[in-house]
């Protein structure tokens, strides 16, 4: 293996927190006590938690070492399909940390919260402009939360029409959270097969859509990275049967400034600000999943809503048909600041973002298609999906390829998803990766394909240079050890 990005170096073992420390040690600066102690009835007193006592350095070293076991966007290319792992601008972290934002109490009187209300108001307007959808709520705390909220709105819509419906159509190319969100609203999700081109054909929908079906949840671009070309026909059909169309817009990074979601006939759309709008993923959140809806559905949006009255902003609860609240306060405000800062920094260049994200994905698709099996050889959007078909002969599977890629210094793509492609390898480079880094990744993938033929053990053994080798996930699930 010639000199690729991945290599090894000195890192550190570190015990679990409670295997460190000594009672009486402290890592916290306890504020000076300026009042007397008030006693508490014994029958209420529990004596406090069994936490370890550590010094400040103990804790700093603990988490510094842990961090070195992680791979982040700043460590290297992170082409995790469907996750849009683009660069997280440092300056946006600064904005979110401003005392005026970080210290703001959510129940302050509106006249003392104008800055944050204006920011939210404007962000809603910008997201409306970007999607083409007129009304927006920022309350959902993540994409799936947006899906849930969206499905609640669809549920409320049918309720308001006097007749609830029981089913929702969900394509096999939709994201995994979609059915779960539908289920939470009491809908039965009906799987829909995509056609041989990897997209939905209007005919299928025409056959399946009926008066008892609340609507359809379409991920577009879908999880194969393909644009649903028949989207307008499909939405017409669904509407003609009195249904509504839910759009999963987590892949918006492919189509900003290009597609008008409203014109495509979508009724409810969620966005993942922690993907398209560059806010960090934090190792699993917090995210933010605003939803955008048509005029017809606006009055169902969660409350409170930010409104403007002659230059002053307020939170308005007065929407009797609203589905209600889905977050104690207003969603992940801190994440909104970062997305807002990103939009303010990019402006209309967001179109450029999508163009370059799609260019990079197609460049990878074309560069690797001979080497890896490309189930759907069509122009892709933000990502492209390969499979391990060519490698199976050598008993090399997607998992092996993913693990070996780590040793080359790249984060693996999303694997085994979407389910329609077996052994799927889903690659999303994003627009923030330079051509050199993308070329390095392509070279690595080719070299791995070569190794799969020459020297499959290398792949089966991988990774050998990470902090740990492959882990026993079955064992973990069979007898779960969830706390120490």
């Amino acid at each position, binding site marked *: 293996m010639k000199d690729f990005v991945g290599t090894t170096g000195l890192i550190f073992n570190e015990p679990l927190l409670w295997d460190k420390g000594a009672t009486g040690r402290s890592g916290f600066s306890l504020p000076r006590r300026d009042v007397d102690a008030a006693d*508490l009835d014994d029958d209420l007193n529990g004596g406090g938690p069994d936490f370890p006592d550590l010094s400040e350095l103990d804790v700093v070293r603990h988490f510094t070492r842990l961090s070195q076991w992680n791979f982040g966007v700043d460590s290297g290319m992170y082409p995790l399909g469907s996750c849009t792992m683009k660069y997280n601008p440092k300056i946006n972290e600064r904005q979110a940390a401003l005392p005026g934002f970080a210290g703001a109490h959510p129940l302050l009187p509106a006249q003392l919260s104008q800055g944050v209300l204006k920011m939210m108001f404007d962000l809603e307007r910008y997201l409306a402009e970007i999607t083409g959808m007129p009304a927006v709520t920022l309350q959902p705390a993540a994409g799936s939360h947006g899906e849930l909220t969206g499905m609640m709105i669809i549920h409320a819509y049918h309720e308001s029409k006097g007749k609830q419906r029981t089913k929702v159509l969900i394509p096999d190319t939709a994201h995994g959270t979609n059915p779960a969100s539908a289920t*939470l609203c009491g809908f039965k999700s009906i799987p829909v097969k995509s056609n041989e081109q990897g997209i939905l054909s209007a005919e299928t929908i025409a056959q399946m859509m009926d008066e008892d079906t609340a609507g359809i949840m379409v991920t577009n671009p879908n999880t194969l990275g393909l644009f649903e070309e028949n989207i307008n026909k499909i939405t017409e059909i669904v509407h003609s049967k009195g249904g509504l169309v839910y759009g999963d817009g987590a892949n918006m990074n492919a189509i900003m400034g*290009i597609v008008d979601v409203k*014109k495509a006939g979508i009724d409810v759309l969620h966005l993942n600000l922690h993907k398209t709008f560059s806010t960090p*993923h934090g190792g699993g959140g917090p995210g933010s999943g605003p939803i955008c809806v048509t005029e017809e559905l606006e009055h169902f949006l969660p409350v409170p809503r930010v409104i403007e009255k002659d230059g002053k902003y307020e939170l308005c609860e007065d929407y009797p048909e609203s589905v209600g609240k889905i977050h104690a306060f207003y969603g992940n405000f801190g994440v909104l600041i970062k997305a807002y800062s990103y939009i303010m920094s990019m402006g209309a260049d967001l179109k450029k973002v999508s163009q370059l994200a799609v260019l990079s994905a197609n460049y990878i698709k074309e560069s690797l298609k001979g080497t890896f099996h490309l189930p759907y050889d069509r122009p892709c959007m933000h990502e492209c999906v390969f499979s391990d078909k060519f490698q199976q002969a050598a008993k090399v599977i997607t998992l092996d390829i993913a693990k070996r890629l780590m040793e080359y210094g790249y984060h693996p793509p999303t694997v085994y998803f979407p389910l329609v492609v077996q052994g799927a390898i889903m690659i999303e480079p994003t*627009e923030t990766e330079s051509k050199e880094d993308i070329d390095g990744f392509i070279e690595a993938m080719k070299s791995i394909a070569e190794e799969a033929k020459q020297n499959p053990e290398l792949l089966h053994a991988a990774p050998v240079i990470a902090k740990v080798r492959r882990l026993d996930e079955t064992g973990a699930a069979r007898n779960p050890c969830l706390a120490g």
Partner: protein
Amino acid sequence: MRYLPHTSEDITTMLRKVGLNSLDALFSTIPEECRRTADLNLPEPLSEWELNAHMDALAGSMAVSPQYKSFLGSGSYDHYIPEAVNHLLSRSEVYTAYTPYQPEISQGTLQAIYEYQTLITRLLGMEVANASLYDGASGLAEALLMAIRTTRRNKVAISRLIHPLYRRVVQTYFAPTGCEVVELPYLPNGRTDLAGLDNLDDLAAVAVQSPNFFGCIEDLKNIEEKVHADGKTLFVTCFTEPLAYGMLKSPGSCGADIACGEGQSLGIPRSFGGPGLGVFATKHKYVRNMPGRLIGQTTDKNGKRGFVLTLATREQHIRREKATSNICSNQGLCATAATMYMAFVGGTGFRELAALNRDKAHYLKSELQKAGFAISFDSPTFNEFVVEFSDGFEATYDRLLEKKIVAGLPLVPYFPELANHYVFCVTETSSKADMDALVKEVQS
């Protein structure tokens, strides 16, 4: 633009490889009828420096400490956060990583969250905790839905002294399910009135909050007996101020089946209500019905300890139509912050900090009482309590705002029957001087 590395040469070469001669050509598969016609109508891009000025102005308009002395709590608490927490969170390996799908290169996140789960079980006296939910409110809703799944019953009873905004989120989550939510009234002493329970049967769960919205500490042990009388009903306790468990008996020790709530107090800034931390813990036997993600300990090929996402079968990836939870991204970084915070504060420190909160709140409570104001509810409290003022206090309240003092939260919007009642919160960040100033001001 500094975030877009492609030079025009790069673009040309890449387009050539793709066999196209323009960026627009990349979108050939997108039908005309759903395309935008106009360019994006957004403000001119700001430079880094213009953005800073713009955001400074927005943030500068907010009312925050130290300029403002605020006695607001009610679900969002002002606690000191060690600078070291911010320092550690700012390491990009921590905050720019995704959900740890690839455990071999995500052990940092995985061990941290495993430590989070563990410290939470220790704090709440429960057996297992998940990797976090969105916030305290959706966490409570999920808890009640989980009770409905486990018990196969379709009615729950929740105390009116649960944070009113949490109750509204529960309503929203329940609306499409057809399940019923009954509310339990409160007693004059500021605790939940359980009398109603007797003529409510087949309950999937009974939920109370402690300390409750009035700041009063519920008698969990006693409630537990009533709830568990019927062998099936689950006892759900929730909280908005986890610091209280630095001194109070834990939900687990009081027999809670599910303990959930908001973890913002554990090292997370208020930032206008989010991101917070949905804390969620239960008993082993319910783990496969629990929503949200879980980290488990295991070993690698060489027998070395390691951690992985586990029990994903409950999730969306496999058997997607059967998923019991739609949670994908959660509040990972907030859970990590909470872990760091609990580690810095430590067991000893956590007890002392909790005591300090209670003692300071108690000081203000008695000072206000001495000053002749009525403490509405006489049950024991932690760092919040309710005061009743005389009619027309609104004017005083507004005058205090002018003086940059926020004199608690008016209860009337949430409890119409409680005109002139205000919830006060005192944490370690309020000095005796601040409190004395408040007492002086409310009298003048």
